[in-house]
């Protein structure tokens, strides 16, 4: 039984396996399948200052080894979250992290301020990378200057752990990561979805109501691994890796590339028990390979010179 504890920039995780925002609901949806308290961290749905209906239907398209979504941050707003959902989340015995989205810097700041008061929410994940709404923050996340600006503003308003979720739809993700680190992020998580599109040749229409949507699943894993590797070399804060993780081996690949923790997204749809399997599988890998702690493999990729 290897040591799976991780100190993620001050945030203590019992193990490095978290769930990705928008793919695990508020956790309760999975209670019949997993023991929530065994998960290292649950990142709940993208939350905005006000109620959002999200995009019209259809919002989903299946693609080779992946899927596109165009949910568009449907949620009932931060106040509803605090009053109606948070009380139940208080009973969940693990890190519950709220993914915060916004259209303006003020939106982000105001939402983060409200969440700062919740004692059982030790961290937020600042989503500056949602590709699915016109003002979903992706514009913030695709330019170092604006990324820095929004992170700085939220930093002033939010004293606890601030993870910043980066967009892969950029030329140089390391540059954005550095800007975000400079602005006061405690960690970065990547990748959010790649901007993609699906066309129905039969109807000659886009499959998604929004034409483009966010690509996730195993198809994006090579890109995610590359970006995690580039980012881990570029910053001193911990990197949380995600994108296409379907099993423990995939997770190990992210640790080797430099991730201090990982998130599981789309895989939850295919196998709702997957988080438990990945935690067990990581432990087995460490045991079989003689590592006493997960820390031993973080960034341990051997690069020939």
């Amino acid at each position, binding site marked *: 039984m290897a040591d799976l504890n991780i100190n993620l920039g001050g945030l203590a995780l019992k193990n490095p396996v978290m769930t990705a925002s928008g793919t695990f609901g508020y956790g309760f*949806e999975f209670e019949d399948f997993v023991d929530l308290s065994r998960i290292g961290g649950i990142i709940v749905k993208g939350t905005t200052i006000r109620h959002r209906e999200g995009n019209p239907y259809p919002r989903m398209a299946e693609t080779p080894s992946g899927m596109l979504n165009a949910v568009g941050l449907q949620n009932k707003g931060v106040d509803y979250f605090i009053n109606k959902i948070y009380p139940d989340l208080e009973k969940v015995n693990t890190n519950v992290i709220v993914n915060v989205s916004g259209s303006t810097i003020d939106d982000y700041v105001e939402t983060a301020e409200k969440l700062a008061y919740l004692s059982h929410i030790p961290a937020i994940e600042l989503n500056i990378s949602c590709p699915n709404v016109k003002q979903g923050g992706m514009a913030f996340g695709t330019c170092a200057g604006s990324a820095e600006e929004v992170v700085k503003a939220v930093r002033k308003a939010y004293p606890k752990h601030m993870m910043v979720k980066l967009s892969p739809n950029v030329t140089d993700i390391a540059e954005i990561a550095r800007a975000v680190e400079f602005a006061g992020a405690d960690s970065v998580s990547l990748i959010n979805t790649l901007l993609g599109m699906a066309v129905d040749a039969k109807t000659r229409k886009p499959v998604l109501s929004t034409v483009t949507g966010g690509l996730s699943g195993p198809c994006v894993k090579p890109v995610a691994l590359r970006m995690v590797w580039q980012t881990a070399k570029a910053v001193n804060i911990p990197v949380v890796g995600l994108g296409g993780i379907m099993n423990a081996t995939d997770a190990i690949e992210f640790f080797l590339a430099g991730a201090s923790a990982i998130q599981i997204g789309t895989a939850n749809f295919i196998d709702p028990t997957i988080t438990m399997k990945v935690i067990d599988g990581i432990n087995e890998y460490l045991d079989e390979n003689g590592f006493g702690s997960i820390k031993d493999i973080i960034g341990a990729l051997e690069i020939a010179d």
Partner: protein
Amino acid sequence: MKKYMHDLVITANEKLNNQYFLLKLTLNSTLPDMLPGQFAEVLIDDSPTTFLRRPISINYVDKQKNELWLLVQKVGDGTIKMAEYPIGKTLNLVYPLGNSFSNLLPNKKNVLLIGGGVGIAPMLMLGADLKEKGFEPVFLLGARSEKDLLELTDFTQYGQVFTTTEDGSHGEKGYVTQHSILTKQKFDKIYTCGPTPMMKAVASYATKNGIECEASLENMMACGIGACLCCVEDTKDGHKCVCTEGPVFNIKDLKWQI
């Protein structure tokens, strides 16, 4: 209602016609409770083109035999693969999912179940359930032609069956909403499942005649358990998840233009 992920074993895979097949599955322990209108998310393993699970309605549960039935129409890669599954193969299901048709109140006992196409699937389980509870369900089933009318002998076990076919090869010629039973008999409640245009026609008929009506909707689903918010229907109360707040909706809550 508790949900499960189980490996079930195929005990029969009956080809009903060129398009439809009936899978019978069993579990090595007692099958969990399921309600009429609920569905399962089926994993199509080892297929490069079907990454996500496929939602399929619970067609029937044979408690004596501990068997779960799925009535499936071949429309794409996933269902075409399933059609070839041999007896003995294991099928991974996440189930039972979704709400269900609401209970019939004792004062609404003249009940009509309208199914079209593969939408007859949940109607069998619903009919059996109503019959068991002491109601006398009447079925109205529609199809293109006689050979597309499935499970008729099963349906007749639970109530009177009326049919329409587009080519007139069985029952009355035309669409379900044109069947004479609708003018001859008065119903208090309609449950329906089928192609959207059919359900809209049924909804329109029900609304005009002041009959309560519930419809089971289809939608593209990624998770089936309310986590992804991909499967929404736009209702009068905003976007609702077809997989958890549906698939059964009271038509008065929908924004259908009827």
